[in-house]
């Protein structure tokens, strides 16, 4: 028994070491990083070969990810393990880990780079941090299942969808108060402030439309039918007029004209499309298929699925690295 104790201590120390080595996993720097929320792993895909080149452990339930404002690190938010992993956006290797961020489901930086906001979907709270130090400066309780977020252009407001209460909340980052809430529809999910900063689009997952909120007037001014399970809303790089909406249950992605507020095209994407990213030249979108455990690469010229790539279970957030020097 006395010999067993040091052996057990040694084993514990060994097991306590860092999880993901900081070295490159994919090697080429030409990667797409996918969060498999249902199995606590990260898939690293190669953009060129459109294959999964590595699958490494993450924290518990990684859902969303985003680059830091300086682009040097990619933050992976692990909701259930209350931490965030900072990884090399070119290759996926872990750089550091920040613990004590309560249930970071969706995260975002204000456009001025001053505030870092974390939505705790399971714990019904929104936390605001100093974006430089990650010290918490405000906590908003009693917000029912805060899901996604977007900011006003002047960084004064963060708009947060409240899934269970079907509302959009505006949090004033200057006064650190909930400024207002407005009912938008059942299962409010993805949030996007339009390019002109006039409207906020909210995907209504419990139905089949996107609510258009005039945030200065604090009211819903339109509803655009996109598809069942309308989930997330995305800007199109270089296109100030159209946005994309993923419809989880209809299994398609809608192109919505924000001027006419009409769906101009439906792109079939199987498997419950959720989050998506564009490649460097904007010719492809890479879409996570939440129900099919795959990532779909869609050609945005032909609107056909070019490739489906098997990944881990329940893939959610996705990041495609674009090398700024290329």
């Amino acid at each position, binding site marked *: 028994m006395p010999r067993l104790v040091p052996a057990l201590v040694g084993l514990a120390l060994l097991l306590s070491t860092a*999880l993901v080595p900081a070295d490159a996993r994919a090697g080429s720097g030409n990667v797409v990083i996918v969060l498999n929320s249902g199995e*606590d792993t990260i898939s690293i895909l190669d953009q060129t070969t459109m294959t999964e080149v590595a699958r490494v452990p993450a924290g518990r339930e990684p859902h969303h990810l985003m680059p830091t404002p300086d682009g040097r690190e990619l933050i992976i938010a692990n909701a259930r393990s*209350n931490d965030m992993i900072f990884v090399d956006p070119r290759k996926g290797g872990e750089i550091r880990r920040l613990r004590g961020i309560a249930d970071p489901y969706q995260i975002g930086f204000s456009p001025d780079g001053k505030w870092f906001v974390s939505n705790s979907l399971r714990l019904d709270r929104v936390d605001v941090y100093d974006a430089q130090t990650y010290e918490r400066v405000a906590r908003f309780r009693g917000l029912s299942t805060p899901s996604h977020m977007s900011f006003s252009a002047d960084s004064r407001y963060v708009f947060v969808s409240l899934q269970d209460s079907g509302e959009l909340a505006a949090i004033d980052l200057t006064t650190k108060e909930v400024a207002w809430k407005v009912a938008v529809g059942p299962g409010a999910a993805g949030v996007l402030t339009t390019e002109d900063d006039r409207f906020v689009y909210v995907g209504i997952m419990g139905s089949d439309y996107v609510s258009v909120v005039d945030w200065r007037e604090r009211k819903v001014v339109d509803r655009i039918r996109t598809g069942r399970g309308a989930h997330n809303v995305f800007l199109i790089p270089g296109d100030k007029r159209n946005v994309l909406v993923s419809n989880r249950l209809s299994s398609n992605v809608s192109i919505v004209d924000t001027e006419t507020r009409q769906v101009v095209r439906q792109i079939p994407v199987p498997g419950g499309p959720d989050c998506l990213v564009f490649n460097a030249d904007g010719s492809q979108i890479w879409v996570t298929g939440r*129900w099919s455990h795959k990532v779909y690469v869609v050609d945005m010229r032909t609107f056909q699925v070019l490739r489906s790539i098997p990944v881990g279970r329940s893939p959610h957030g996705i990041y495609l690295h674009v090398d700024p020097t290329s």
Partner: protein
Amino acid sequence: MTEIWALVGTVQQWTFEWVVGPFLFAIGEAIYLEEAFNALEGVIVGLFALIVIYLVVRPLEIWRPVERWADQRAVRTDVIYTMINHLGVVPLALFILLDPLERQFHALLDDFGMVPWTLDQTFPALQAWPVATMVIYVFVFDFFEYWRHRFQHRLTWWWSLHALHHSQTQMTLWTDTRNHLLDDVIRHVWLVTVALLVGAPPASYLLVVVLIMAVESLSHANVRLSFGSIGDRLVVSPLFHRVHHAVEQSGARWGCNFAVLFPVWDILFRTARYDRGYLPTGIMPDGEPDYGDGFWRQQVVGVVRLAKALVGRAPPSPTADAVRDAR
């Protein structure tokens, strides 16, 4: 294993996209798409496990039965229990009940600056060793299952519920789920608590539950099967568990062979018996031999027995003396 998961995933996706999702949308509850999708996995895994268990264990029961019965109505009741349990009715109801509690618990911990402890976050390197991590989870769960089972026999009020499980005189592969619904609730609360204590993620928890389901179905089977003198000390066999169900071992305070997966706990805590054979199963008459002969009747009788136990009017357990004599 990868192929099995892929098949489960395909069935889950198809069922969700064509049946569950549209149904939720039609009834205006599509905000629960994610929860339903996750719950569906448990149902499909349960169904797959049930099919595999049936295909493996049922032929064994036909090949080498311990007993043969002309009237098998009692067995058919156990099939109902299995369907309710393995096809997600009970787990789904408990998920709806327990999920808000779990969320509040985590929020409370966070208010005190605490993060729920998890095995693989404390020892991150374990995440690169999923099989080793699973083995640890399995042993931890099995340890707590052993003690839950001992308490079921030790505490009079708990025995008043658990007696239904032991009242079966026609023990088959379906009998492992023959439990009072209140006992099921307690079991799941117990298991979820253990999952919280060790921080087992939902996927690991599901695998542990399926493993327990498979071994318990086999260990309750009406089959003459032992794993040998060494094997019976490594994994719970039909012979090992049949001794636990034997009439001579029944009773609130006594018994043996409580382990669910690994007999090591019985060996460690001196409750293992290897000196008995294939004995008749059931409970010695204890003054209240009626446990009901159908699902609903059994549920009602169980509640009445529990009420009597809680007010101190539970029938004395003559089996205690009988078991002492048997030893």
